[in-house]
Every structure is written in C-alpha cells, then in structure tokens.
C-alpha cells in the first residue's frame, strides 16, 4: 500500500528493506528497547515488525503471569515509530503525538510477543499509524493500537526558527 504516492525505492529506508538479517542497530541504539531485548523481525515499506522476548520482569499481574500492559505499549510505540521511519522520504526526527491501545485479551504467559505497525498515511507534518500485537497467531492479536507522530520534530533548523534566532 502506498501512503504518500512515493515509489518504495524513493523511501529513505529503501536500501534496508528486505535485508537479511534486518539491521538490529535501529533498536540496539535505543537503551530501553535494548534492555527489553527487542529485535527487528521485518522492515518493509511503511511497515515494521518487532519481537519482544517473554521475560518474568515484564509481568504486570503475577497471579496470572500476564505481561504488563505498559510493556505492550513499549513494543507498539517502538514498532509504530519504526513504521514511520519506513515511510520517510528523508530521515528526520519524529515524535509520538499520541498512542491509543486496546487490550483485546491477555497475552499468553511465557510466550514471545510480536508487534507489527503500518504507517497508513503520511502528510508533511503528521504520520498516522495502526498496529497490532500477538503471541502465537497474527490473526489473533491481543492488542491493537492507533498512533500519530509529528514529522521533523526538531524544529531548530526551520527558516522561522533561524529568523527568530537572529532577532533574539
């Protein structure tokens, strides 16, 4: 699916798509993603798939052994951000504007979790993303999400910012 009218080969990440194994640097440079042992499964135009290995320290409800909702937030936030990167024509800073998660059911205990996000619409300023997370079957997700991101979050180099700097 094209979100911007751009041919996939025009995307900034084009040289990376489909590379085997996928370059893990994109998550290993993120301290918290690294701490959780997250890894990239797939990077494709507008799409990112990430894995979060099950660990006891991710649990929210010890009685049921279920992973804490917040850990799923982290997986889906990371996947969503990478999906936006997979939609950029030029690399620029991005920032999460909002993220909404629906917890469809409890994640199965002792199971690795996978998150998949797709940037389905990209404008000059805002990227729109939807995602889902599952344990065993991609068709039976335990969580889904919607997120929006600001593009070019670091505004210090805009002409207006430069002009204001000169005035200051």
């Amino acid at each position: 699916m094209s979100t911007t009218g751009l041919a996939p080969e025009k995307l900034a990440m084009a040289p990376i798509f489909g590379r085997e194994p996928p370059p893990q640097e994109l998550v290993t440079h993120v301290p918290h993603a690294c701490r959780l042992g997250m890894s990239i499964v797939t990077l494709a135009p507008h799409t990112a798939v990430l894995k979060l290995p099950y660990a006891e320290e991710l649990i929210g409800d010890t009685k049921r052994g279920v992973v804490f909702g917040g850990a799923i937030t982290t997986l889906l936030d990371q996947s969503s951000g990478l999906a936006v990167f997979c939609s950029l024509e030029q690399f620029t800073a991005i920032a999460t504007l909002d993220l909404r998660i629906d917890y469809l059911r409890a994640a199965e205990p002792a199971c690795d979790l996978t998150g998949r996000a797709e940037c389905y619409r990209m404008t000059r300023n805002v990227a729109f993303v939807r995602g889902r997370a599952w344990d065993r079957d991609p068709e039976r997700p335990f969580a889904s999400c919607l997120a929006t991101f600001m593009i070019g979050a670091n505004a210090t180099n805009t002409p207006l910012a430069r002009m204001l700097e000169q005035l200051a």
Partner: protein
Amino acid sequence: MSGGSRKNRTPITGVPYARMLGVEVERSENGWLVVLPFREANVGNARLPALHGGVVGAFLELTALVELTRQLHSAGTPKPINFSIDYLRSAGADDTFGRAEIIKHGRRIANVRVSAWQSDETKPVAAGIGNFLL
C-alpha cells in the same frame, strides 16, 4: 513543584515491570504521587536524552493502577481495557511524577485520568486516560 523528600518513597514490588522501570510511590501532603526516578535503561532517545515513549505510557498506566488499587481494595488486579496517551513534551533526564484521578467508578468499569510531569506540575510531559475492568 516536584515530589519533595525522597524519604517517603516506597518501591512498587508487586508488579515486576514496575520494578524493572524503578517506579516508586510517595505520600505527599495532597495525596499520593507515583514517581519514576531517572534511569539510563528507560531512555528511548539517547541523544536528547529522552525517556522512551513506551516507558512514559507504562508509567501513566501504572499510576492509574496504583490509584485504583488504593481506592477500590478489589481482590484482583484491575485489567486495562484501553489506554490513550498524549505526549505533550519530551520527558528529559529527570525524575517524573504521576497523579491519577478516578473520573468514574462503576460496578465493573473505572475510568481514570492521569497526568505526568517533571519539574513543574503545570507543564505536564504526558497525559493519559483509560478504562479498566474491575
């Protein structure tokens, strides 16, 4: 206003992911605060540095859970149905504080609103709202 004295802080031990993040609760003169002391391992952007968006989201959800547990005395852990996070400012290398308000407490569902800030409570870094199954 920030959190005040560190002496009244207690780590959350019952939730493993909260322990991993290093979340604590603190009694203050106007209610309870949930505190996320700054840790390198919670960073998402090392260059800024800024906390991981997922960590901020998890912290908001945990703040809601603490408030629900404190007020409802329910037998089980309330289960999140959905949670929505607005990222308002970058959360820097500083302690983060959270406060939750139960907007509606029904028989089966509670609706909770949360705010998180760093040095100034009037300048929140993130806001969250969620529904929990009791």
